[in-house]
C-alpha cells in the first residue's frame, strides 16, 4: 500500500478535478516549487496510484442517448465458459465496461446505444448471442454522478 501525506492528497484532489494542470501551476496553488510538485506527481504515477487520465466525452452530444446497465447470469459455468464469455463480451464496441461480480449476477455490463431501438439491436444481436449467456436484467441509466472518493 502506498502511503500519502497531506500534500500528496492535495495534489490528487486537484488533479482529479483537472488532470491537465501543469506541475508549475499546481505547485503555485499549493505553495510548492515546480520540481517538488513534479517529483510528487511522478511518484504517484510510477507507483500506479494515478492509473491514467481519461477524456470525459459527452456521450449524449455524440449521439449516444442511452446507457443501460445489464446484469448477466451465465447459464453454464466452468472455467472455459467464463473465458469464452469474457473474450466475446469485451469485443463488443457498445459494451463500455465489464465487471465480474459476486451476488445476484455474474457480470455487470455498461452498454451505450444511440436510442432504445439501437439498444434493442445490440441486445438481440450481440448480447443474447454471447456464449453461455443466461438471465439478463436491464436497467436504463437516468443520472450518474462521480464523487472524488476518500482522498482525505
Amino acid at each position: 500500500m502506498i502511503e500519502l501525506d497531506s500534500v500528496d492528497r492535495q495534489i490528487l484532489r486537484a488533479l482529479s478535478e483537472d488532470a491537465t494542470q501543469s506541475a508549475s501551476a499546481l505547485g503555485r496553488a499549493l505553495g510548492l516549487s515546480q520540481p517538488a510538485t513534479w517529483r510528487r506527481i511522478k511518484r504517484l504515477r510510477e507507483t500506479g496510484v494515478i492509473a491514467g487520465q481519461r477524456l470525459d466525452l459527452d456521450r449524449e452530444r455524440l449521439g449516444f442517448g442511452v446507457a443501460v446497465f445489464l446484469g448477466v447470469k451465465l447459464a453454464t459455468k466452468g472455467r472455459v465458459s467464463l473465458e469464452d464469455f469474457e473474450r466475446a463480451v469485451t469485443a463488443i464496441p457498445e459494451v463500455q465496461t465489464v465487471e465480474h461480480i459476486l451476488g445476484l449476477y455474474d457480470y455487470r455490463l455498461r452498454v451505450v446505444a444511440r436510442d432504445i431501438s439501437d439498444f434493442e439491436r445490440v441486445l438481440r444481436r450481440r448480447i443474447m448471442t454471447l456464449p453461455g449467456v443466461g438471465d439478463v436484467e436491464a436497467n436504463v441509466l437516468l443520472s450518474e454522478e462521480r464523487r472524488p472518493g476518500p482522498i482525505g
Partner: protein
Amino acid sequence: MIDWRKLGYAVEVSLRVTLDKAQPRAFEEFAQAARKIPEVLEIQSFLGRVDTRLSVIARDMAHYQQIYRESILGLPHIADVEALMHVARIKSDEALPL
C-alpha cells in the same frame, strides 16, 4: 483516475438500493446524504428493477461493515439494499463506439 487498491482500498461493493417511492423527494434527499459519505465513488439512478446504485470502496471487509452500518443504513428513504461484490474488472476503457 485513481487506483484505490494502491491506496489500500481492497474492497469494492455495488449497493443496489430500492427507495421508498411514497416520498416524492426520496432520490434527491438520498443522493444529497450519500454525497457526504467519502467512500461513495458513484451515485447512479435507473429506470428498471433497480432505483439507485452506489459504488462504495473500503479498506477491508471490517471497514466495509463499519461503513455499511454507520453510514449507508443511515441514508434516508431506503426500502431495500442488495450488495454485489466486485471480483474483477474485465473491461473498463469506457470508450464510445465512434
